[in-house]
């Protein structure tokens, strides 16, 4: 982390939605400086505060620690702060609980801090194991195996900054490297919708109805078929013919007049 000037005065920002700065330091009332990005969570921050003040985990002065904790997270962006805010509210609650008078009639007093102490100790142990594991990984990384391939670094590829000319010349280079490039040639075959429309209309002048495939020639191409289909759709849209299918999977019939409902 790069060094920066400590922030000495906390600006009144209210809700801070800005992305967190790389280096955000907060000078606490106690005088020491906290780098929030260096902590891996509220428990970590809490342990740090206790260590700085050389306080006993088992007997935490809640009021003091709660104030310091709130001051430390004051500068956090809201996105980061969610985890910290939960701990902050817990500390404030504990602070209140500690102020409540304890009954003096010999009833056993349950320390409201017990749960927090348990979590802190548990987390402290996890941290110690994490340190141990970091050292183990460090020792292991000094030994190389044969033919060991390190995993690729986890950086995302930079966004491509090319203009069209550079892209096209790259395509040319790639294609020229192929021995027998198989290029698909796209031929524009215009559909003859007008011709198909005329054919349908002349057939309807002759006959009351016909099977739609009759409007195709002897050896229809795919574009003939598509032309006919578009012509039929257009004619029926304009009400100049009617297309119907007597039963499922039977060929379509083209009719001059609308099929009247049976009287």
């Amino acid at each position, binding site marked *: 982390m790069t060094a920066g000037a400590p922030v000495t005065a906390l600006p009144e920002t209210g809700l801070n939605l800005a992305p967190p700065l790389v280096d955000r330091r907060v000078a606490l009332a106690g005088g020491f400086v906290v780098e929030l990005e260096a902590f891996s969570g509220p428990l970590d921050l809490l342990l740090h505060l206790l260590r700085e003040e050389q306080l006993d985990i*088992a007997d935490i002065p809640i009021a003091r620690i709660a104030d310091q904790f709130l001051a430390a997270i004051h500068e956090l962006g809201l996105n980061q702060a969610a985890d910290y805010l939960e701990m902050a509210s817990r500390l404030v609650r504990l602070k209140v609980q500690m102020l409540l008078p304890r009954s003096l009639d010999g009833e056993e007093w349950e320390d409201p801090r017990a749960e927090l102490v348990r979590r802190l100790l548990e987390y402290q*142990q996890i941290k110690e194991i994490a340190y141990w594991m970091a050292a183990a990984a460090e020792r292991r990384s000094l*030994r190389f195996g*044969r*033919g060991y391939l390190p995993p690729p670094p986890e950086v995302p590829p930079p966004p491509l900054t090319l203009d069209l000319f550079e892209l096209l010349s790259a395509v040319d280079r790639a294609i020229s490297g192929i021995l027998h490039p198989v290029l698909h040639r796209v031929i524009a075959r215009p559909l003859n919708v007008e011709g198909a429309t005329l054919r349908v209309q002349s057939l309807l002048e002759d006959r009351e109805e016909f099977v739609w495939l009759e409007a195709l020639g002897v050896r229809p191409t795919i574009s003939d078929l598509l032309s006919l289909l578009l012509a039929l759709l257009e004619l029926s849209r304009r009400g100049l013919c009617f297309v119907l299918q007597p039963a499922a999977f039977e060929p379509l019939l083209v009719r001059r007049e609308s099929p009247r409902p049976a009287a």
Partner: protein
Amino acid sequence: MNPLAQLLEAALFAAARPVAAEELVTLDLDASLDDVRVALDQLREHYDFDGHGVELVELAGGYQILSRPAFAAAIERAQLNVRQPRLTAAMLETLAVIAYRQPVGRAEIEDIRGVSASGVLRSLQERGLIEVTGRSEGLGRPLLYGTTPLFLELLGLSDLQSLPRAEELTIALQPPKAEAVGPDDAAAYVAADR
């Protein structure tokens, strides 16, 4: 070195990954598992006492021939090999929880660390250090995570038993009250799964 030790040396040289003793037995039809273990000891001693640049290391349930740490800096300077990138603090803490409590769900990890864990879990999964080992019977049947052999390899451990035990840690866990010690308590988990 006897012929079996030589065969094992050749096989481990060729394998370029940790190979389990059970796998090494298949190299020689006449050799038993004990023969292989004896030969492996011989190979290790051969490397250790005759002044070799490599050593035999027990790793992730197997054996691998690795260069000695003393030569790491020179090898890296010559760009013949690259050291593994370091793990972040968040990754290490999450791995620590998973290693001791596996199979463990996300909620428990987040509870112990006090921060959300989804991002860290994803990057640990991408690096192949943890995997989904099943689903909890609890509400919503959340995914349960466990460590992989690659985790052991990264830390240079032969198995999970090589992780430090509770009594080896400087911070001994002292529960504030006797009744606070439950099966879920941190004091129990280090002893568990062993």
